[in-house]
């Protein structure tokens, strides 16, 4: 019994569990936590289950669970909306974004941490401010920039925009700060130039931070919809999120919409299932520093 309640952290300690009222409080805490988990999971579950309903069932019958579980309904919607195409487009956006995100933000983080050329503080200062001011406030001039270069209707601006993420640069800089300067100096004395040092020495050491940035980049570019919508709407290159955003103005039945929502949330949930440790770590690591 003592082992079962072994606890050497937090407010309640092992010895407290000898008192019945503490056990009761602990029991209440567990119930409360389970209730919270229920509130968190239930709406997601309900959304997925509602996809199994027929349209009359969804709009007329106030029931939580569907009458039947026929996966064929999802397949029908998938074919009707031609969702495979949007998946492919989203994948293209995501893969290009990862490349630019790691190389561009990583290089900048490296220079800010290990090279520190004259004037680097100005860039660092600008980055810290960029964290706070939302990109959406200047989306119109950005859109005009892209149009001037003739890049609307292509994936290129979306790939490139992943390379300008202040949060990732700060994550990288903080990580590189923890690599001993002596390793870098030794490589410099051996005659390596900075590019070689970055790609041959620092990069292989950065497996964990690269994973964190990759996963965040995947979820970011999978979820982004405003810029993709402005650039890709009606070009045949719509991503999954652009398609969801189109539901605001296009005609679709409600069950089709709710199934499309399920299609759009499954890849991030699967990703989370595999990489939850990295995702939650990145959250606490970069969350407040900056």
């Amino acid at each position, binding site marked *: 019994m003592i082992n*079962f*309640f072994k606890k050497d*952290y937090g*407010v*309640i*300690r092992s010895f407290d569990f000898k008192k019945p009222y503490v056990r009761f*409080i602990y029991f209440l*805490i*567990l119930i409360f*936590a389970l209730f919270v988990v229920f509130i*968190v*999971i239930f*709406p*997601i579950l309900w959304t997925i289950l509602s996809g199994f309903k027929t349209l009359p069932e969804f709009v007329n*019958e*106030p*029931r939580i669970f569907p009458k039947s579980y026929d996966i064929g309904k999802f397949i029908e919607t998938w074919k009707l909306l031609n969702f495979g195409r949007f998946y492919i487009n989203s994948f293209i956006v995501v893969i290009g974004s990862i490349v630019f995100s790691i*190389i*561009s933000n990583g*290089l900048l983080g*490296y220079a*800010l941490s290990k*090279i520190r050329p*004259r*004037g*680097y503080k100005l860039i660092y200062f600008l980055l810290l*401010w*960029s964290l*706070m001011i*939302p*990109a959406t*406030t*200047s989306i*119109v*001039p950005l859109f*005009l*920039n892209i149009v001037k270069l003739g890049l609307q209707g292509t994936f290129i601006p979306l790939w*490139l*925009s992943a*390379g*300008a993420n*202040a949060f990732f640069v700060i994550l990288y800089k903080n990580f590189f700060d923890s690599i001993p300067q002596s390793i870098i100096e030794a490589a410099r004395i051996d005659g390596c130039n*900075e590019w070689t040092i970055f790609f041959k020495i620092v990069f292989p050491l950065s497996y964990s931070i690269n994973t964190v940035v990759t996963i965040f980049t995947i*979820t970011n570019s999978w*979820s982004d*919809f405003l810029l993709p919508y402005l650039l890709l709407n009606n070009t045949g290159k719509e991503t999954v*999120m652009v398609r*969801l*955003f189109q*539901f605001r103005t296009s005609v679709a039945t*409600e069950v089709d*919409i709710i199934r499309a929502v399920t299609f*759009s*949330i499954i890849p991030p949930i699967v990703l*989370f299932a595999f990489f*939850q440790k990295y*995702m939650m770590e990145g*959250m606490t690591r970069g*969350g*407040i520093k900056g």
Partner: protein
Amino acid sequence: MQEIFKKYKRDIVGWGIMLPAVLLFTFFLWEPLLASIVMSFFKAQGIRLEKFVGFQNYVEVFQHPDFKSAFFNTFAYTFWSLVIGFIVPIILAIVINEIIHFKGFFRVSIYLPNVIPGLAVAIMWLYIYRAGKTGLLNIILGNFGIPPQAWLTKAHLVIPLIVLFMTWRSAGATTLIYLAALQGIDPELYESATIDGAGLWARLRYITLPQIYNLARTLLILQIIFVFQVLYEPLILTNGGPNNASISLMLLVYKYAFEKFDYPKASAISVIIAFILIILTTVYNKIIKENEM
């Protein structure tokens, strides 16, 4: 020449390495920000700037009744997010920190809404708040005999309801940050308090809470900055309605830009938002500095 190159080699190489990213940041963030400041002082025909008009766009924006609604609503969002959303992660973190078994399960579960794309979550909640008897909230309340409500059409409820949704979505991430802080508290503090006869409540009140006080202060400002930018939640759920009851400043920018195609006015509001955010960020940085001392 060689001498000079040697002296500045590090700077040249350094800037060479930073160049790709600096160009991208300039193109995607910094130049557009400056351009929107410039644009806010002009009249424009579509995207072509026509003539300099000084603060006229600002004056016109201020005088429009939409601005007043958006301005006060944005503060209402912030207020409600502090009432509803600030305390929730603190409680959740303290509760989960006390749990002995399946801790990982609880942490993963509460973080789950964060990984779902914002647009998808907003559409989900559109169906949860759906008017009529088949919205999820109405189904649940129906079991208790409460008749179906058209939730998002109630002017006085719409902002708290949207904030409730935002809290559901993002409380998990904040909880993890608090959890990390709670795990960093020196266990001996609790032990010596216990020896001094402190009960559970006293330990919570005099050890746990003071230990996360600084973090809470920081996160409070971050939350204000974050909520101040609220855009897609009202955009998807209500499009600012009913009757502007849920329009936010960012949503007003969106409407000027993409519904009225009046880019200078959209820019003027953007500049106002950026200005307010700069003030908030200055406060934030000051608090961070104080915490470090």
